[in-house]
């Protein structure tokens, strides 16, 4: 703790009891109140994108799976879809359903993990133990499908590698029944437990206009009433056939994010039931070529923490020319200082935890080659630039109707 102009500067991290991963915060305190917060990330930067560029596409799949151990399926789903779109592969329907089931199981385990960690941060360790006990059932199912509790390796180019046997489908159904009961209990708990409401309400506020300003995604945006669920605004895979009931809340604070996540878990249970019931027969994968045609692509997938964006550029070889991973936490960091400022030091851990930060997802390097100047593009200008670019490639995009996104 160091003193500067009568204010305390409190360094938190990179190793800290309330942080499971290395990250550093410099928090300037005026008494008990946070006056300024500076986030220092980058401790987890491993040079993953560069590693992808020096390996073949098939090898990259294993690296992409290890971008993050919690949302590994979301990352491989995005990367696989990039390659499939570039190769023009048609993924079998059964494979899309299995991807969807594993994705929703992953959302369940991630949100249960978050609920436990959040409860731990506010000193409610009983709930932490309860949720992590229930999470084990989900992990058992993921292990039964993929053979591993974490990094299950279900996805491959052109489909999935593991099929669902009838006994396993019945077992998942039973686990969902048991889990739904628990989730309803947590939902009621979140609505009536005064300690939980008192501790979570009114802190870490991010209003809809701030969500737009900081480009926040996922449950952080949805807790401010902005529906940005990629499964709804840009359906992909199985979600083209099965509609998702979006969850939003208007509390704009940590409590709202809790409500959104608990409701999303109930929605995931419903989706898994529907997908298991309507699981089509057929093959689970098609053969993918080793070389990927030249081109570039950007794919969005809804990870448990929000919108996960992957960009892949290929020059026609068996190695990518450029891989870019923009994980949801990277988008949510921008608003972090704003969320912390003005609140008490005791609320700092739960406000940080409320965006469900994942540092290993986040730590990518960006080199500013044109540093010094910055420019802002308005929406119309961006659109004009996009049209010009596609026209230079020989594609006429003027006939494409733009989807109208619901604006705050």
């Amino acid at each position: 703790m160091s003193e500067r102009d009568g204010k305390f500067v409190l360094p938190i991290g990179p190793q800290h009891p309330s942080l499971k991963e290395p990250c550093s915060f410099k928090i300037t305190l005026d008494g008990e109140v946070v006056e300024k917060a500076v986030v220092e990330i980058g401790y987890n930067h491993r040079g993953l994108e560069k590693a992808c560029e020096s390996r073949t596409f098939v090898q990259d799949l294993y690296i992409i799976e290890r971008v993050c151990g919690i949302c590994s399926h979301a990352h491989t789903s995005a990367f696989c879809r990039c390659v499939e779109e570039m190769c023009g592969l048609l993924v079998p329907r059964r494979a899309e359903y299995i991807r969807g089931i594993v994705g929703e199981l992953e959302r369940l385990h991630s949100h249960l993990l978050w609920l436990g960690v959040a409860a731990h941060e506010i000193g409610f360790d009983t709930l932490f133990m309860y949720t992590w006990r229930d999470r084990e059932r989900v992990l058992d199912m993921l292990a039964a499908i993929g053979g591993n509790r974490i990094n299950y390796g279900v996805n491959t180019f052109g489909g999935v590698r593991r099929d669902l046997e009838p006994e396993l489908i019945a077992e998942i159904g039973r686990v969902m029944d048991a889990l739904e009961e628990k989730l309803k209990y947590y939902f009621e708990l979140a609505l009536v437990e005064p300690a939980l409401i008192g501790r979570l309400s009114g802190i870490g506020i991010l209003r809809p206009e701030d969500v737009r300003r900081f480009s926040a995604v996922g449950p952080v945006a949805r807790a401010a009433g902005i529906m940005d669920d990629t499964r709804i605004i840009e359906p992909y895979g199985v979600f083209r056939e099965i509609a998702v009931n979006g969850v939003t809340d208007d509390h704009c604070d940590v409590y709202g994010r809790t409500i959104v996540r608990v409701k999303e878990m109930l929605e995931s249970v419903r989706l898994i039931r529907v997908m298991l019931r309507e699981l089509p027969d057929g093959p689970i994968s098609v053969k993918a070529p080793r070389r990927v045609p030249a081109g570039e692509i950007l794919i969005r997938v809804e990870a448990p923490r929000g919108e996960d964006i992957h960009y892949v550029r290929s020059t026609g070889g068996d190695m990518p020319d450029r891989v870019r991973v923009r994980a949801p936490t990277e988008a949510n960091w921008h608003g972090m200082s704003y969320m912390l400022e003005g609140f008490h030091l005791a609320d700092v851990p739960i406000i940080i935890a409320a965006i469900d930060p994942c540092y290993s997802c986040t730590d990518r390097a960006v080199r500013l080659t044109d540093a010094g100047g910055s420019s802002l593009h308005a929406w119309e200008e961006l659109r004009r630039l996009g049209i010009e670019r596609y026209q230079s490639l020989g594609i006429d995009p003027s006939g494409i109707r733009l989807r109208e996104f619901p604006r705050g």
Partner: protein
Amino acid sequence: MGLVDKAIAWGGRNSPWIIHFNAGACNGCDIEVVDALTPRFDLERLGILQQGSPRHADVLVVTGAVTLQTRERLKEIYDQMSTPKFVVAVGTCACSGGIFDGCYCVTGGVDAVIPVDAYIPGCAVRPEAIIHAVDALLKAKLPKAAGRLKKDKKAKPDRKEDAAHDGAGNDQ
């Protein structure tokens, strides 16, 4: 071996406190370490407790390939721990760098930075493996005789045996 050393060995054997440090892992091993502390596996029944401060901990549990930015911090945390201290490398990345070995920002395994006492391979490691490794490590490093506070009245104290255990208990 003095009474203080025996008391420390006894405490370390029966209630080792662990500190967890993520040196650049993908989160997979970290959540499995936390998983081992929660009801299904419940490391606490073996007296193992997670601690926030390196000064209170006996066992440093490191996950992930060591990145350039965490390297100094890892050394610092290791130096802050009091002896006897042990290091467990959890996961393939911590053992050798794993899939990230050779990346421009990765030093390699944990043993490139600090001495490691136990390696647990796996991606991600299962909680059972973590429990087994911590248990085996403490049995090997802090033998039971060294951790006995009261001398067994029936068996006569053997000076030679004591001397042998002295070495075993204090090799850090």
